[in-house]
Structure formats: structure tokens, C-alpha cells
């Protein structure tokens, strides 16, 4: 076995000891960060963030701007919480997920496969479950390239992941009788497709088109969509605290001589889920708007978010603004997500509807080999043969 487990084992011990040594200092800084969070008035933070956004130098971090519901005043503190409301007597939750067999650079045949699945679970007097999946083999130029007429910008890597998100959401348009009851549409992951941020505007628009039109369809149907981010790594609120503490320019930390410098640098390593660990089970934080640049393309589907304690985990929930601006829809999203997590047999919990959607969407290793074999067989029938790179061939043979 080439892997030198003995040596790695010692390194693991070193890593664990280093982390243990850092723990007291980290906990101290985290407590100071929470004190900071508790001490700030939401309106004062908004003012500072707005002032900062007007500065010629763009903010180097994603920040969270506190939001209020229409006709309601802005919560005074950033630590204001809302307890989970009750769910309606009868309601549905539909979860969607996607997986893919990506294009193989080492094969002469260029294609990819997207499998999207959904689970529609209805609770109340007549409980019901529908579990379905839909697959598509993508091999035409219009599938393989963002701009097929020029055969430009191949859909792979980040773009394929974004395409999967789009296809998963679009699947909701095929769900029968969607919206018969109050229904929540839950996605596994963010609604803010920030991975497209570094793409050109044309690429962003081409990929977002199906996503945003489906969000429009959901708005017409009265079905609120929500992105569920488990174990969120985002730091938007922590970054807002850094802007609050900053007395100069946020991109000139090297020259900073502030007394808060240590706390500010600590905030760079603190996740929002750690800041909001004070939320009680079922509670959500207040609403925030995101400064993610990709949201410039979202128009009326602009996305806001909140954090909530689902019982053992702080998750990030993203909703379009038309949901965030409707107290009833927002309450339903909050209640249905908490209800889902209470139905989960796991600790920490995970919405069963997303687990079942995943089970529908997942492509197993044997299925991947089966698809590959079927493609080769189909090609052989038409006199074509799959040619693989020498490297790939060598990996498969593994001769000794």
C-alpha cells in the first residue's frame, strides 16, 4: 500500500494537538465576536454598510445587510430571533436534487448525463409521497456549450454544477398538482448561484434564464422556494461586523492600527453558524440581504437569507425577496423547514424530503459503469468505437 499511514497518523496527532491548543483562544475571540454582534444596532450597521458601499473602493468581502419585513420596523438588534410558527394542518414539501455523469476528457465521445429527482411529501389528513426522477443524456452542441453556434464555453465543472441546479429547479414544473396545499419547494444548496460570479454576464444570463423563469413560475403558483444550506460556511454577517469595526478601508488591513484589529482578523476565520450558535432549537435569525454580485442578475428574484437552528445545526436558508417580503410565506417556510427537521431520524437532522430527493437523483458507481457500457454498445451498433486516452486505458488495465 503506497499510502504511508504510519507517517500520516503522526501528522494527525500533531494536527489534533495544534487544534486543541488553539481552542481556548478561539473560544475567547468567538465570545468577543458575539458580544460585538449583540452590541450593534441593526440600523446603525445598515448605515455603515451603505456608507461603505458608496466608497470608491469595492468591499472585498460578501456582507449581510439586515432587512425588515414590509410595514415592520427594522429589528433593533442583530440577535433578535423568531420562534418557529406552527405548520398548517395539511401541507406539502417538495425537495429536488440533481447529480451527473460529467463529460470524460479522456474519451472520444463527448457527452454528459444529468439525473434530477424530486420527492413530494404531503402531511396532514391524507399523507402521501411521490418520488420520481428524470434523466437526460446531453450530447448535442446546444447541450454541450453555452454558446452552441460558436461551440464556445463548454458546460463542464462549475458550469455543469450550475446546470444541474437549474435542471433540478426546473423539474418542479413537472410535479403534478403542485400547490394544491400550501407547499414549500426545498433545494439542497443555495439559491444564490455564486459559483457563476466569475463568468461573463452573457454566460451568467444564459445559465440563469431557466432558473429565474422557474422561480417566476413558483411565484405564480404560490409555492415558495427555499435553498437549504447544511453546515453553512458563509461569513456574510461576520464580514459585516468587520466593516462595522473598520475605521479605515477594508482592503488595507496591513496598515490597520485599531484596537479591534485582533477581533477583526479573528472574524475573518469565524463562520456565521458559529456566531448564531445562540439560536434556540427552531428559532431563526432576522433576515439579511446578500451583497453577492451575481444577484444583480436576479431582478425581482433577488435572494435574501436567514439562519436557523434546526436542532443540532445552524443552517442557512435562502429565499427570494417575494417570499422574504411576505410575512405569511416566510412563516410557512420557517415552520415547514423546522417540521421537516423534526421528522428527520438523524442527529443533527436533515430534511427527509431532501434525503429522498437525493436518493432519487443519485447515480451510483455501478450505474455509471452501466451507462458507459450502454453508450459504447449503442455506438458499436452504428460502427463507431469509443477511443480512450492512453492514460485512461492504463488506469483501467492496471497491469503488473
Amino acid at each position, binding site marked *: 500500500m503506497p499510502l504511508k499511514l504510519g507517517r500520516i497518523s503522526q501528522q494527525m496527532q500533531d494536527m489534533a494537538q495544534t487544534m486543541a491548543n488553539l481552542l481556548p483562544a478561539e473560544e475567547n475571540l468567538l465570545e468577543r465576536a458575539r458580544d460585538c454582534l449583540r452590541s450593534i444596532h441593526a440600523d446603525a450597521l445598515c448605515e455603515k454598510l451603505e456608507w461603505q458601499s458608496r466608497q470608491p473602493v469595492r468591499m472585498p468581502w460578501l456582507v449581510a445587510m439586515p432587512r425588515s419585513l414590509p410595514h415592520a420596523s427594522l429589528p433593533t438588534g442583530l440577535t433578535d430571533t423568531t420562534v418557529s410558527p406552527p405548520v398548517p394542518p395539511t401541507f406539502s414539501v417538495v425537495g429536488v436534487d440533481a447529480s451527473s455523469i460529467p463529460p470524460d476528457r479522456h474519451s472520444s465521445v463527448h457527452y454528459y448525463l444529468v439525473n434530477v429527482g424530486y420527492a413530494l411529501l*404531503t*402531511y396532514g389528513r391524507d*399523507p402521501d*409521497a411521490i418520488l420520481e426522477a428524470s434523466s437526460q443524456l446531453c450530447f448535442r452542441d446546444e447541450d454541450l456549450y453555452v454558446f452552441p453556434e460558436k461551440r464556445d464555453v463548454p458546460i463542464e465543472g462549475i458550469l455543469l454544477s450550475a446546470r444541474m441546479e437549474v435542471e433540478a429547479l426546473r423539474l418542479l414544473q413537472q410535479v403534478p398538482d403542485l400547490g394544491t396545499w400550501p407547499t414549500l419547494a426545498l433545494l439542497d444548496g443555495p439559491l444564490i448561484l455564486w459559483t457563476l460570479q466569475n463568468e461573463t454576464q452573457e454566460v451568467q444570463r444564459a445559465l440563469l434564464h431557466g432558473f429565474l423563469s422557474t422561480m417566476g413560475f413558483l411565484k405564480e403558483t404560490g409555492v415558495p422556494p427555499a435553498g437549504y444550506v447544511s453546515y453553512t460556511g458563509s461569513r456574510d454577517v461576520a464580514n459585516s461586523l468587520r466593516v462595522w469595526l473598520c475605521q479605515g478601508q477594508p482592503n488595507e488591513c496591513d496598515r490597520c492600527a485599531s484596537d479591534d484589529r485582533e477581533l477583526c482578523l479573528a472574524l475573518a476565520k469565524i463562520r456565521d453558524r458559529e456566531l448564531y450558535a445562540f439560536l434556540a432549537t427552531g428559532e431563526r435569525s432576522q433576515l439579511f440581504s446578500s451583497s453577492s454580485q451575481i444577484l444583480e442578475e436576479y431582478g425581482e428574484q433577488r435572494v435574501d437569507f436567514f439562519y436557523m437552528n434546526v436542532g443540532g445545526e445552524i443552517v442557512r436558508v435562502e429565499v427570494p425577496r417575494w417570499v422574504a417580503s411576505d410575512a405569511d410565506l416566510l412563516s410557512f417556510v420557517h415552520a415547514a423547514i423546522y417540521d421537516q427537521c423534526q*421528522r428527520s*431520524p438523524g442527529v443533527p437532522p436533515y430534511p*427527509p424530503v431532501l434525503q*429522498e430527493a437525493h436518493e432519487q437523483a443519485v447515480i451510483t458507481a455501478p450505474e455509471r459503469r452501466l451507462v458507459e457500457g450502454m453508450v459504447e454498445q449503442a455506438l458499436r451498433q452504428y460502427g463507431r468505437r469509443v477511443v480512450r486516452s492512453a492514460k485512461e486505458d492504463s488506469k483501467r488495465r492496471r497491469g503488473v
Partner: protein
Amino acid sequence: MRIGEIVETMSTGFVAESFELNRPPPLGGLVVVRLPGGEASAGMDVYAVVTYGQTGGLDPSRRAVRRSTDTVFDGAIYQEHPELNRTLRTEFGAALVGFAVDDRLRQHLPPQPPPLHFSVQTATAGEVQRFTDHLQYLRLLLAPYGQVSPLQVLAANVREVYQHRGQDRVWLSAAAREIATLLKNDHESLLTVLYAIDPGQVPPSVGRGQVPSSAHEGAPA
């Protein structure tokens, strides 16, 4: 009545997925697979005795986990987790004990296993009566198959048939004598079966005896 679909089949028996979750046919019950005739062959009814029932995850890699809470338990779990009706499955196994072609009943293994994906039906009361008029099939039940002891399957079958035949004590005595013959060299096993088929009174006398003549009519060759 169709109760399941064959998902695994072999010369000695088959495994079927039950149409109803948590409700496999009773252990020892007689089931039948009806095979339509073709141009060159007659139709065949293949009989089998249920040897086990089992409920678990539809995907074998997903094990069932505890779902109950202080307020939600037993049947309410299925109300609160409707996806369970789509992610669990009940299967049952059955040992082949005979077949009928052109109204001729045979109590030995059929020439071929029943086809995969064919329906499994409960045998009608008339079929149970007619099939169990002969007791040679009990021998097939003593062959080892699956997790449940053949002795328990044999006893379950006798109990089921006894009830289906309207608590037919004459038949029960004949079956007990047949079993006594089959297990004459294994006293402990014989007692195991006799205790298990005792309908509540003193077990029928054990000893080599004759099946009533009426039960022999039309007995297979």
C-alpha cells in the same frame, strides 16, 4: 387475489415483493402462480408454501432507523413519514410444492421455476382443499430453505390448511400421521411439529396410519 410479484426465482422456490407493506401472506399459507398456456403447451398453476416474510429498505444499502417519539409511534409513524410507503418493501419467500396441468395435480417440483415478475396469488379455498387432500407435498417442506426452520414452516402450513379446511380434524390427523412417518427417525423434530400443530387439545395420536381413503382420491402418481 394478486398479492405480490416474483423478484427472484429458482427451481425450489421464489421470492416475491408483497403489494402490501408489512402484510406478507401468512407463514405456511398456500399461494399460486398461474402460467398461461401457449400454442404448444398447456397452462400451469404452480403451488408454493410461504416460508418467510420480511420488511426492510427498498434499497438494501439503506437500513431502517428508529422513527418513534413519545407522541408518534407504531402506525402513526407511517402517517407522519409518508415516504416510508415508497422506501420500504415487504417480501416473502415460498417453497414450490406442486403444480397442476390440465387439472392433474402433481406434488413435486415443477420442471421449471415460475418466471420472474409473474404475479403471486393466494390460493382459493377450493384450491387449498383440493391440493391438501394429498399430503406428499409435506415432504418438500422438510428440505432446508431460508432462515425459518423447515419444521416451523411445515407446522405453519398444517395450521393454515386446518383453518382453511374448516378445522378439519380428520385431515389434521392424516397430516399428523404423514408427518410422523416422515420424521420417524427424528423424535425431537417430530415432537416440535406436533406441539406446533396442536389446535389446543391433546395432539392426535402419533403412529403410522392410513390417510382416509377420501383423501387419496385422485392422488398424484
